[in-house]
């Protein structure tokens, strides 16, 4: 009995602490870092972030060899001779932190999520997948879901950046650039799937990576069609970013959003399959400098899902699931201020 009482006392202490943190608006203890740790992390981040975000081996390569340029692009020149000693030292430092067997711990970079880039897939002449009987076109669905997601996130005090907010063609690499220039913290690209097996349906979420799966290779080739990059180019580029912080955070974001999509949508779509989180070489993700994912939110090739997609309510459910995923991810990585609490405001006023 005394053992039970001891356990109870310990649990109550933890429970009270957790609730006090909630009242004070602090993140859970395990997510917080001491001031000393934060300072160290900031210093480390200052040194490492450029390497990490660019992909260290890519950075080293830029000192040693011209980066293989995609067709129609200019290759990066080697560093001038006078800077080679500094470059070699930098490369040595970078390589120490970026050895492929020792990925940088993403927890070292307590990056906050304030601004979300929403990318409505396709647009303009790039219509994406489409189904004749219902007249549904991927570019319209993605734009509609993106607009709904924007409203939800703004209501939750996120800043939102749209790569397109009307029916226009935006080049794939330009979408990432828009997010980069706008200093977005995460990038969410919305797409609708088409699967040859028309009975298949479900949701799947991608983050950037190479794949040996011929189905995914074909899917990526379809989505990358307008980019001008070949798959060989992609593989070279991907090899350089594997071990960076962004890669790990992208995977985490993909897992969180996928879980939310599946959990929320299967209620109104009982036959929904969880097609999982996968790595695939999408150009639109490659051009970003922040954690980035591509969510295939439904399958237009499946009759039942196409019918659901035709309903505004279902598209709203998709947007809500994506928003919940983003929120959940933001909650896990940082101390995001919650919505202004009216009760606390009035308390201050009295």
């Amino acid at each position, binding site marked *: 009995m005394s053992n*039970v009482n001891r*356990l*109870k006392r*310990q*649990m*109550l202490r*933890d*429970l*009270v602490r*957790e*609730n*006090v943190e*909630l*009242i004070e608006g602090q*993140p859970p203890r*395990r997510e917080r870092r001491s001031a000393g740790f934060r300072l160290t992390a900031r210093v480390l981040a200052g040194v490492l972030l450029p390497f990490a975000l660019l992909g260290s081996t890519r950075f080293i390569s830029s000192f040693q060899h011209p980066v293989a340029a995609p067709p129609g692009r200019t290759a990066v020149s080697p560093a001038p001779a006078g800077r080679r000693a500094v470059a070699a030292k930098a490369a040595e430092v970078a390589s120490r932190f970026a050895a492929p067997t020792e990925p940088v711990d993403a927890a070292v970079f307590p990056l906050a999520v304030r601004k979300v880039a929403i990318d409505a897939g396709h647009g303009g002449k790039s219509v994406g997948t489409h189904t004749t009987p219902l007249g549904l076109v991927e570019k319209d669905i993605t734009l509609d879901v993106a607009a709904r997601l924007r409203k939800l996130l703004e*209501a*939750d005090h996120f800043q939102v950046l749209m790569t397109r907010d009307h029916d226009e063609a935006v080049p794939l690499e330009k979408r990432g650039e828009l997010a980069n220039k706008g200093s977005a913290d995460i990038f969410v690209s919305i797409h609708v799937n088409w699967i040859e097996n028309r009975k298949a349906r479900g949701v799947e979420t991608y983050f950037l990576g190479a794949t040996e799966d011929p189905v995914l290779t074909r899917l990526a080739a379809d989505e990358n069609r307008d980019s001008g990059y070949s798959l060989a180019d992609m593989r070279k580029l991907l090899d350089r970013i594997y071990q960076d912080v962004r890669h790990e955070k992208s995977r985490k974001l993909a897992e969180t959003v996928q879980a939310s999509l599946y*959990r*929320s949508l*299967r*209620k109104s779509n*009982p036959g929904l399959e969880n097609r999982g989180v996968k790595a695939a070489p999408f150009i639109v993700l490659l051009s970003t400098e922040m954690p980035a994912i591509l969510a295939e939110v439904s399958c237009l090739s499946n009759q039942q899902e196409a019918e659901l997609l035709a309903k505004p309510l279902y598209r709203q459910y998709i947007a809500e699931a994506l928003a919940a995923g983003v*929120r*959940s991810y933001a*909650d896990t990585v940082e101390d995001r201020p*919650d*919505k202004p*609490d*009216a*009760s606390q405001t009035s308390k201050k006023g009295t």
Partner: protein
Amino acid sequence: MSEKKEVLHVGIDLGTSRSSISASNGQRHVVESYVGWPLDMVARKVLKKSVLIGREALDNRSMLDLHRPLEQGLIKEGSEKEEAAVRELLWHLLSLAGVTKETRANFKVRAVVGVPAEALRVNKQQVRKAMQGAADSLMIVSEPFAVAYGLEALLHTMIVDLGAGTTDFCVMNGRLPTEDEQRTLPQAGDWIDEQLFRLVRDRNPQASVSIHMVRTWKEEGSFVGNSKTPVIVTVPVAGKPTQIDITNEMRQACEGIVPPMAESMLDLLSRVQPEFQEKVRNSIIVSGGTGLIRGLGPRLEQELAAVGGGKVRVVKDPVFVGSDGGLAIALDAPENDWERLSS
């Protein structure tokens, strides 16, 4: 001159379908989580109330703007009406325990409110906001943890709280469960209702069926496995009361919940330290109103056979087990801790 106030500890299980309160003055009540406001002046005159709650609201729903303000165990977002409905519901529960808006000043209310295991911080903040003014101090806990605490099942135990909106899982390892030790599934009582509604409607397209009727049928006749007695219900078909046999539909709808439950149980079990897995497997406790599905315990035990077997116990008083657990926490928390949790 300071006035001496009576301290009242309460545990509240704010559920999607039913909400219950257990109070330190011995009061225990459960209400259906419905809140309705009269639609117009006529309705107000007939009903003679400005707001109706629980069964009373459900029975008079044709005259009401009826709300079920919780969805998957959480306050529905984005609607002031839903927030107002939750506040009414909470105040109603408190009034059943003896604290009305008029007598509130005479009490010091210490409340523990249960929320789904995977509720986010923003959801918890919503609950705090809804409780503003109703309690002097508030603690928010995960529902399965409240159940575990109330049953003193704190070590090497798995709690499965099968409610209306969510099924919550929690492994108790002698400490406050972490996120990795908890799961929330959307498949719960409401999900079964929807499946049953669809199955009955598909098989009897002429029958007039509502989700409320289906919910009542499920509460009276839900089962998994074999049933000795058929489930016969009466529904209007072209206006004529007609008996239909929904035994197969009931079985199919209820059994649909078993695979995701088994998957979550096995997933959580696989994360328990290997030396304790057998202990946890043999101490699985099912609580919550939907946990009363006949044959559910043995059916889940069948699923556990694949990993060496286990024992599943369904609690006898699933309606109050959450609020009783909340009350136990409220009573055990030291007074100085309650002061830190003032709202």
